[in-house]
């Protein structure tokens, strides 16, 4: 036998549950809609890159799928324009810039975190204040400097101004300071030199942060456009961003969009692969202060 109050309660619970279900369904639908918005451009570039030139241009109404995929556009992307060259340049640029950045940042962070010297706080404050300086302000003189040193269209000209990252020094310093003092004192007692301690103890312990920094820098290098555009006008030294702009304006002929999309796919794949492998690390690193800029 049911008490009237209990059925009321039951009914209220039921509507509550139904409401929660509807809310959940709507949430999922909205989230899926945005996921579609994000994924669609990727789908579209993949799809277009496997349509043949003829069939793409014959479509007055763009087809949402293709039944006869072809790889000829990828062949064109590597033969008709020097896409392989652009990729190689970007790889060299990325590896060298990231390696120098890591070395410079680790050394500086070690000095701030472990060594004692006069004016340390002042110097660190000066470093931090440099974080506020936008790139746009310094790029003009850097362009003049690199031109003056006759380093235009060289890797040195591309790399040198791109090395400095105050933020990464700051991030590393914070991390180094978390390593207990006792380790350092023990190493000093054993007569270990500072450099050896840094190399054998600190770097292995702080590897996660170092890896994060390296990955963030790789993303930054792979996508850099403005500086490479300023200091290179020789296509032999173009990075992928400039390469794709060059392809758009002069390569393939304006209408060969499938080949263009094949190049876009080739350029996008390395970073997406890197992201899928290091997903957790990248997202954590970015949330600690990465800005796409």
């Amino acid at each position, binding site marked *: 036998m049911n008490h009237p109050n209990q059925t009321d309660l039951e009914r209220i619970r039921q509507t509550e549950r139904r409401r929660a279900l509807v809310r959940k369904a709507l949430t999922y639908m909205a989230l899926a809609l945005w996921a579609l918005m994000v994924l669609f451009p990727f789908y579209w570039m993949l799809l277009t890159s496997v349509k043949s030139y003829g069939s793409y241009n014959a479509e007055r109404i*763009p087809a949402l799928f293709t039944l006869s995929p072809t790889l000829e556009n990828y062949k064109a992307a590597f033969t008709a324009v020097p896409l392989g060259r652009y990729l190689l340049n970007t790889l060299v640029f990325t590896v060298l810039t990231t390696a120098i950045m890591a070395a410079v940042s680790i050394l500086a962070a070690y000095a701030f975190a472990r060594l004692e010297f006069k004016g*340390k706080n002042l110097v660190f404050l000066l470093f931090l204040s440099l974080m506020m300086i936008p790139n746009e302000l310094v790029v003009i003189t850097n362009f003049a400097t690199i031109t003056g040193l006759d380093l235009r269209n060289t890797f040195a000209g591309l790399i040198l101004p791109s090395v400095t990252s105050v933020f990464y020094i700051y991030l590393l310093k914070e991390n180094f300071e978390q390593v207990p003092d006792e380790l350092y004192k023990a190493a000093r007692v054993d007569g270990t030199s500072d450099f050896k301690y840094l190399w054998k103890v600190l770097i292995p312990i702080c590897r996660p942060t170092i890896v994060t920094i390296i990955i963030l820098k790789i993303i930054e290098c792979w996508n850099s456009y403005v500086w490479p555009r300023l200091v290179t006008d020789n296509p032999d030294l173009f990075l992928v961003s400039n390469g794709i702009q060059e392809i758009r304006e002069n390569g393939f002929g304006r209408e060969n969009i499938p080949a263009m999309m094949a190049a876009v796919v080739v350029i996008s794949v390395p970073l997406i692969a890197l992201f899928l492998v290091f997903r957790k690390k990248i997202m954590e690193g970015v949330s600690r202060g990465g800005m796409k800029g």
Partner: protein
Amino acid sequence: MKHSDLKPWLYLLPAILFLGCFMVYPLIDVFVYSLEEGYNFASQTYFGVGTYNYSYVLHDPYFLQAVKNTLLLVVITVPVSTGLALLISLGLSSIKPLRDLFQTIYFLPYVTNTLAVGLVFMILFQKTEYTDGLVNLMIQWFGGPSVDFIDGPYWAKMTVLCFYTVWVVLPFKILILTSALASVNPDYYKAARVDGTSRFRTFTRITLPMISPMIVYLVITGFIGAFKAYSDAVALFGTDLNAAGMNTIVGYVYDMLYGASGGYPSYASAAAIILFAIVLTITCVNLLVSRRQNQ
């Protein structure tokens, strides 16, 4: 004794050299450039010192167009992207299954090359002799007239630029807001539920105040980022942004420095300093407003 005094500086030396050459010196030099009138890049000579460069830039119709474009972009994309990111993050934090998948997908634009993916947006929105493009096709399904978003009217070009900018900046904002939402102490929500507080009230009284520092952070970085917009516009409209009427302030700086209309580092410097002044002012105003609200 002497040796150990020197050692820290040795460790700092590379960083100081790089920062000195490519940040501190240029920072001073840019002000010098901006005051040198009639500077010639080739002969490195100038007529005199004064504020002519600033007045030239401020009267240049291309610069005014760039300021207008940038301001519109800022005013539209910052609120839209922050609001959208908040909605998406709220949705994300209310579900469990598939959450990781959604988060991964939403982050993808962050790791893509802006120039490369911009080309995809261009072909989606462009109208050519061969095809009206996918977006126009969808507009026609709903009975609207087709528009060329890449070479057409100003509002259409602005729409694509804003849309692409939002698409590019959302991953960062979603990431920051989801972790901010996850860090709100669940006890507050439990207490609110016990008190029978409505969902809307829970949101405005608990969630919003708890994550407001992060929203302020996103608005400020969003302002700064949007004021520096450039490569998104290049990706959509090509390198000659002045001809497309879609130049941004940063684009103006680079065009003055280099390219078809380049060779004027003094004008470029003046424009860059004006940009920096605008950004600094707005950031300070933002900080003041948010501090007052928190008090």
